[in-house]
């Protein structure tokens, strides 16, 4: 597996289309691979991290090395900054129970429900922060990690925060507009089952994985005392 980081330039004209529609960005990411289909190792996952008006980062995890020349030419800095690709396997192999990591995840929290007049259940988005947090808490046991609790005994709470929420609505050729509700989670986790976590990192979590949801990434935990 490979992890790729690419800064995007939102001031370029093509950014309007690419950043405005997860469908367009999905197509652009897929076009970066000769064969984007999932392998035994994992699948193509991507995520857009926005840290300000002019700081937008595209992360992808993929079984093959990507070639994002077309994206750089349209919405990057072709002559100064391209993309960085690193081997992901080293990290995936080094996961051990008890390790602490910072994580970030953009997901599409849904539950299946039936409304009046519906003959069948359909996935409906969780709406509130609380529902979205609960959605993640419910599936954490299956993902091979647990949340680190912070704070003193009296107010100990799992280190989990929804840092961004969005409702994306975009067109998809040949179908009605697609609407997905996304939530970006950040927090600190402790590895319990490395194999399950590896699966979550390479195959993603939840729905709408083609549309920038479900990609979990790990970063070194904050140094003691600074947090």
């Amino acid at each position, binding site marked *: 597996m490979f*992890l790729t980081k690419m800064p995007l330039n939102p001031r370029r004209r093509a950014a309007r289309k690419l950043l405005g529609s997860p469908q367009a960005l999905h197509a652009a990411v897929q076009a970066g691979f000769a064969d984007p289909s999932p392998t035994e190792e994992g699948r193509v996952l991507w995520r857009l*991290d926005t840290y300000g008006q002019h*700081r937008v*980062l595209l992360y992808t995890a993929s079984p093959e090395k990507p070639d994002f020349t077309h994206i750089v030419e349209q919405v990057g800095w072709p002559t100064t900054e391209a993309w960085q690709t*690193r081997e992901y396997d080293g*990290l995936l192999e080094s996961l051990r129970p008890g390790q602490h990591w*910072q994580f970030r995840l953009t997901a599409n929290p849904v539950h299946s429900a039936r409304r009046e007049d519906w003959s069948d259940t359909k996935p409906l988005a969780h709406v509130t922060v609380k529902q979205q947090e609960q959605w993640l808490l419910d599936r954490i046991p299956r993902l091979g990690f647990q949340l680190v609790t912070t704070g003193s005994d009296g107010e100990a709470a799992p280190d989990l925060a929804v840092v961004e929420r969005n409702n994306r609505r975009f067109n998809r050729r040949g179908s009605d507009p697609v609407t997905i509700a996304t939530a970006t989670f950040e927090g600190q986790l402790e590895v319990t089952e490395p194999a399950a976590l590896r699966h979550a990192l390479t195959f993603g979590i939840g729905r709408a994985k083609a549309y920038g949801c479900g990609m979990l990434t*790990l970063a*070194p935990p904050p140094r003691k005392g600074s947090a």
Partner: protein
Amino acid sequence: MTVVALRLAGPLQAWGSRSRFVRRETEKAPTKSGVIGMVAAAKGLRRTDSLGELPDLRFGVRIDQPGQLLRDFQTAQRPKKEKDGTTSWSSLPLSQRYYVSDAVFLAVLEGERGLVEGIDEAVRGPEFPLYLGRRSCPPAGPVALGVYDRGLEEALASLPWVASTRSQRRHRANTVRLATVRDAHPDEAEGELVQDIPVSFDPNRRQHAWRTITRGTVEIDNPHGTAEKGEEHDPMASLGG
């Protein structure tokens, strides 16, 4: 240097500097003549009285909450009793009145300590009712913010943000950039001229002199800012190489 700070907030405000006939305009920030007039009313001066030293005070405002421009198309009719006892109505000139709605301004007057303290006291217990530029625009909440031992520019740059809590929350960022409009120094070359120094409020002979203003911005802390300078999550950091 001593300044007195005033908080000008209300559902409607109107600060005209060039209104003519039926088109009653408003500036986006309080005018010197409007604020001096309000202070004169608070002190109990009549319209025909001399304004004394008030027009010589240095004046500056900060736009803490810009509000929105509102136009009122105003019609009015005058009743006339006919000889047979009926009433007929004749239309008065139609007028367009402009207001800024839901705005909050910080106005600062700089001058001698005694004079400035007198203004603060008068505004706290006004002789005639206070209004924000037009008689129909009463202030919301106390106007007086107190007297400070600072210069005009320093006061505009250092006094806390007086916008409503709701709009402070909506701003999220931890600092805000606010526009200011103040009297220019005599040695400042650049400036904009407005006819806005009150000479006389006498209804029969209103007079305003020209005033040079300078526009700028100041950066003020937002007590309700919720933006955290979040550190970027960098998954590449754990991959080495």
